[in-house]
């Protein structure tokens, strides 16, 4: 079985190391004998419409706006997501996949609308620090990451968060963090989040390929546990 992972504009959305999520997915997919192809989408390139997993990372305001403009005019990511492709979007990427967000001048603009989420910038100080959440589904354990963002994101009524904040800020409303709606995952957690939470990496993979055999990766597990024990 083959799996196509599409990493979107890592030059623009790679400020916080989230590009590592691709390497972790590839590593864990290969351990399950999947044939993995990584498609690196750079500015000017068309976004493939038949990918299985699309990845967006965190970036600075200007590059975030540039990435959003290109994704809107390309349309490939919306097409793939409407067809059920998996999307994992972190921080600036999470804001991009929502319905609205501030542009680099602070004016509210339309996002990709893959999920019903609205990001605003208010006067509160930047949210910076370790973030710990309790997921409500997927038999996921406590997840940890590092948040560093200005915007706060309000989810629509029917939108399930990825988890509830135990410590940190997260989305900034109702102690919610991130989103997990259908096959779309969003989060403010860097780390990269899939490095610090191998169970979430497998949840993302399963949403694309279905059930998979167990994979014990000692370094991944001991690292995830060390972070959880240190922070809870």
């Amino acid at each position: 079985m083959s799996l196509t992972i599409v990493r979107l504009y890592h030059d623009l959305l790679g400020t916080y190391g989230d590009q590592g999520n691709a390497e972790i997915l590839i590593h864990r997919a290969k351990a399950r004998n999947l044939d993995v192809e990584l498609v690196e989408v750079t500015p000017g390139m068309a976004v493939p419409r038949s990918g299985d997993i699309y990845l967006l990372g965190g970036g600075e305001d200007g590059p975030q706006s540039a990435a959003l403009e290109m994704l809107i005019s390309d349309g490939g990511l919306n097409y793939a997501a409407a067809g059920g492709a998996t999307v994992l979007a972190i921080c600036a990427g999470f804001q991009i996949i929502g319905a609205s967000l501030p542009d680099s001048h602070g004016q509210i603009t339309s996002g990709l609308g893959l999920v019903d989420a609205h990001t605003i910038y208010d006067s509160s100080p930047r949210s910076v620090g370790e973030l710990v959440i309790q997921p409500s589904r997927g038999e996921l354990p406590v997840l940890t990451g590092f948040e560093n963002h200005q915007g706060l994101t309000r989810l629509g009524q029917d939108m399930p968060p990825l988890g509830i904040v135990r410590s940190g800020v997260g989305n900034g409303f109702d102690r919610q963090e991130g989103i997990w709606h259908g096959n779309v995952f969003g989060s403010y957690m860097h780390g990269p989040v899939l490095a610090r939470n191998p169970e979430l990496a497998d949840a993302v993979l399963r949403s694309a390929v279905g059930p998979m055999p167990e994979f014990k990766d000692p370094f991944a597990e001991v690292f995830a546990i060390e972070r959880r024990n240190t922070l809870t």
Partner: protein
Amino acid sequence: MTGSLRLSTACIAGALAGRLSIGLGRGRGETLSGRVILALDPKAISKLGAGRDIILVSGTNGKTTSTKNLTSILRDFAGEGVSTSESGANMPAGIAALLAQKPRNRFAVIECDEMYLPKIYRLLSPKVVVLLNLSRDQLHRTGEVRKVSRLWHETFTKDDVTIVIDRDDPFLEYSVANAGHVIRTTFGGRRHPDAATCPSCAAILDWSTGDYLCPCGLGSKLPDVRADKRLNGPQRNTVLVIEAARLMGAEILADEAEDLINRSPDRIYDFSSAGQTISTHLAKNPESWRQALGEVTSDQVILSVNARGIDGRDTSWLWDIDYSKLLGKKVVCTGERRLDIAYRLSVQGIDVSVASSFAEAAETLANEPIQAIVSYTAFQDLLAADLGINKGNSK
């Protein structure tokens, strides 16, 4: 109290406090003494700097070594007293203390933290500012590279200072876009990993030629100095330092400049542990790690990672570095965040193990050459542990 009496009282009290606190450890005395001075005379920095020839050095990587290098060049070539911070203190308190120490020195070469540069620039009216480079560092504290660049852009709007920059770095070019006097040095252009878009207008930058030229005009100004493309980071910094020294009147001939560039100080120190001498690179952000990895030649490597304030509290950036240079080598990870780096290396297929301390890491390795790359506070821990440190440059 009159202004000058207030200042001299502040300086005497500051010196006393500094001496009393020497037992606190490296650099602390300077900071404490500076705090006392600033508490007693909040205007001490501008008063102590008045009438002196001041050079500020800032940037992400190489501030401390470049400041030392420029100080020693000025001492050799200008033959007059040069004040500088011996400990690398680069915030207002440390700067007040170094200026108070020998107030009659004509020159002062001052390392300045990126975020404090606007304030120190306004207080001191320097003759020259050297901006070495800007890349990602301590994202939890400084915010993003673009923000530092914008802060500098808003600071340097007059023609009362000459600013020396590496124009191949678009963040620096943007920082000085409104400045009156700029010495632009080029090293033939090189891709900046954090500058996919223009720092000025946010357009996507075209790097296909290995250089940038934005339609908004950023990058179009001609360079004043052309230097060798093959120079590494510390050598590039030396080129800028030489230009700054020349602006201060030092006569440096071409062959002397070449010699200085070849002898560029690097952040490499020798430590001894378990009977081994370990050539240790200090690295604290993606760019300095890339440079340090480029220097690795031995088959055994120790990597030590912490995530205290100055190291950057978020370790995610470790995933932004290509470690393929370490494939086939024996790598031991240590430091408080050894698992972060060990897991990252294991995903890249590198043979890696972990050790609870630097000394233990050295013990697990064979009696063959070892190199180490350590983060900032891990390096300070090594100094504190007194592992028979032979501090000095290996070059």
